[in-house]
């Protein structure tokens, strides 16, 4: 499914870029394909259509039509408008220094409210606040127990005093102010937006606590229903923003686009894992890339076009797919890739790499070491690593200033990586995020 989707984007973008001049009809055709891709990413139909209309207006505008590279411009407009629709620039979550500042969490059953509350509490505590959690979900069996358990895990106190949600919330406000807690996070019961009684209850909790923020937890896997849910909660409790949950899966998260668009409220956070620390401030530009399935591959490929020796790269790629990739090729490609910039940055541009880049420290010295090891091999050894015996390993190690263990590790990993590549490409067209071709290949 995703292969089709990304291939489709690749096709659209390639087509656009290859044109010297663009006819409005060609723009329309491209937009039709982009629409299909957006729907496959679960962007609501109405939101996709509004979005595309905006892109269209800009894309057939004079600025684009007169440009020397109109296709390039359209691609840029799509990604800019998408980022804009998602809230534009990153909006930090701010709370006043009240006594206490109140945050209310609402959403449907199973959207991840309780977990989001605990994550938010931890996040705020790390920012130097003193949070208190209130368990006001008295509907779901054991929801209160769950929040107490989570509170204990992250060392944030939890209260739940009273027979109904409004009383629990009110008591919690008093308690927070008495105990010198400067943020109160109120977890409420999951409710369907079509349940009038429960929706009114949410309204009453809001009225009783006068929250500074009312957040709605929205599951990243939600489909077309997202707009109906967001509108209903917006009407009843006047949301200030959203937390997109379960974004650590492979969902494209089109719901994030939909809810921001129909309510005009930003997404503040994204839940990206099961641990309490797995909450990230939301970045519209990254989300846009994700919805488009591009990572930031476009930028990456553009960089590659500019800096890498394309003839060589194409040859190496062919060999790689035929499983003829040698350490010699690897060394030359390693040098080419390093011209592109720090690996840490490159990692962040890969599809799904942004999250990885923020959690993993890439050690450039390791790459330097790998380069040194291969450089210390003879040409014969690079082409046929099987001949590298124990004595050769010792020689290579001393030649490169590393240990035999390092040489062993490199050879082993090269072998594994090669196998992985073979699996990935299957000797055929790689199932990789779509992207424009490299000119001149």
């Amino acid at each position, binding site marked *: 499914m995703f292969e089709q989707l990304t291939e489709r984007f690749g096709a659209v973008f390639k087509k656009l870029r290859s044109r010297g001049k663009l006819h409005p009809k060609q723009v329309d*055709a491209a937009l039709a394909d982009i629409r299909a891709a957006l729907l496959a990413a679960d962007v609501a139909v109405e939101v996709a259509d509004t979005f595309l209309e905006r892109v269209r207006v800009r894309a057939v505008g004079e600025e684009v039509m007169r440009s020397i590279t109109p296709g390039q411009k359209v691609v840029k407009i799509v990604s800019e408008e998408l980022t804009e629709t998602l809230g534009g620039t990153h909006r930090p979550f701010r709370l006043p220094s009240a006594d206490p500042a109140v945050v209310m969490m609402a959403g449907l*059953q199973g959207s991840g409210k309780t977990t989001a509350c605990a994550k938010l509490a931890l996040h705020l505590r790390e920012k130097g606040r003193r949070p208190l959690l209130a368990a006001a979900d008295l509907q779901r069996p054991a929801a209160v127990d769950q929040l107490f358990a989570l509170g204990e895990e992250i060392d944030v106190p939890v209260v739940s005093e009273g027979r109904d949600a409004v009383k629990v919330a009110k008591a919690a406000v008093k308690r927070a102010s008495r105990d010198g807690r400067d943020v109160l996070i109120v977890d409420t019961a999951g409710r*369907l937006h079509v349940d009038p009684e429960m929706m009114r209850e949410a309204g009453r909790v809001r009225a009783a606590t006068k929250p500074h923020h009312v957040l709605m937890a929205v599951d990243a896997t939600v*489909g077309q229903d997202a707009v109906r849910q967001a509108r209903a909660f917006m009407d009843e409790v006047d949301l200030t923003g959203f937390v997109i949950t379960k974004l650590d899966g492979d969902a494209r998260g089109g719901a994030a686009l939909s809810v921001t668009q129909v309510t005009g409220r930003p997404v503040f956070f994204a839940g990206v894992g099961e641990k309490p620390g797995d909450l990230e401030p939301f970045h519209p530009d990254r989300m846009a890339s994700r919805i488009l399935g591009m990572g930031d591959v476009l930028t990456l490929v553009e960089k590659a076009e500019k800096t890498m020796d394309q003839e060589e790269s194409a040859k190496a790629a062919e060999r790689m797919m035929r499983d003829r990739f040698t350490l010699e090729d690897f060394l030359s490609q390693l040098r080419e890739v390093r011209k592109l910039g720090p690996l840490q940055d490159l990692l962040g541009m890969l599809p799904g790499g942004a999250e990885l880049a923020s959690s*993993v420290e890439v*050690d450039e010295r390791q790459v330097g070491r790998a380069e040194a090891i291969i450089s210390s091999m003879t040409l014969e050894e690079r082409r046929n690593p099987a001949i590298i015996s124990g004595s050769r390993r010792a020689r290579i190690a001393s030649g490169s200033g590393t240990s035999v263990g390092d040489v062993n590790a490199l050879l082993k*990993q090269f072998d594994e990586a090669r196998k992985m590549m073979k699996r990935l490409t299957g000797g055929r067209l790689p199932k990789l995020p779509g992207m424009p071709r490299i000119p001149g290949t």
Partner: protein
Amino acid sequence: MPSGVGLELILVFVLLALLAGAVVIGRGLRERPGPAEPRRRRGGIADRVRKLVGKERLSDEDWRWLEEGLVRVDAGARAAAEVVTRARERYEPGQDPRGVLAEEIAGIFDGDPGLALPDGLGIVLVVGVNGSGKTTTIGKLAHRLAGDGRSVAVANSDTFRAAAGEQVAEWARRAGADLVAQERGADPGAVAFDAVEAARARGRDALIVDTAGRLHSKQPLMDELAKVKRVLEKAAGRAPDEVLLVIDATTGQNGLAQARAFAEAVGVTGVVLTKMDGTARGGIVLSVREDLGLPVKFVATGEKLEDLHPFDPRSFADALVRG
């Protein structure tokens, strides 16, 4: 994530693969046919429907509009296009095209099996992503099986989520079922094994095993789930009689990826579609049935014990085409 040399090497390889991909994809795409014209909607929905019924001939645009209606209930573009194509072949002027479409959709589920448990100890494994409604479904299913005269045991092998045990315990109590559970952090496989032994020792004739919610894209968690299934197999001497995948009706296109991954890991036998009491219509199960052949066995509609119903293709299809 591997550290040290491994990560960097792999990273470089991924980069190379990407660039190789750019080269090859760029070549492959040159011969592709052009995309279709963009679609535009006009007029209100009610207006549109009135015009469709009793119409002598339906235009391409009319059919596209019907197709898009299915996309709006999460059926997925491909599945929507396929059923509309089939409906279009059968359609005769003067018919209500939505009726024909609904028949076509319902027909996909024709002859699908319902829940089938053998005599003696029948074992049901329940799986799904976080928050899909597994535990609530288990409470309702226990109640339903008890209503059929079975004595039911429920095992909580969700030893990960805080207070999951308490939640299952409450549902088991409500449904009048036995509970087999262990402490949080216990090995889920061990819980499953004990559960089979305990259910057998107590002479129960149904055992429902709850599992921790997990995102289908997390391989170690999926491996753990496969292990739970293997342990059940070992303890019972045969595979679980049913492996039910719980899918939230509000789920979009990701539902297909979920179903595929769970089917691969534990051989899902059927789907339970939950939260059907909201505005979502659960169209994703259409794709799941078409692509993976997984039948829908139950539909859940509320928070009461009785709110679990055998799947009725016709009423599902009607709701789908009516949005």
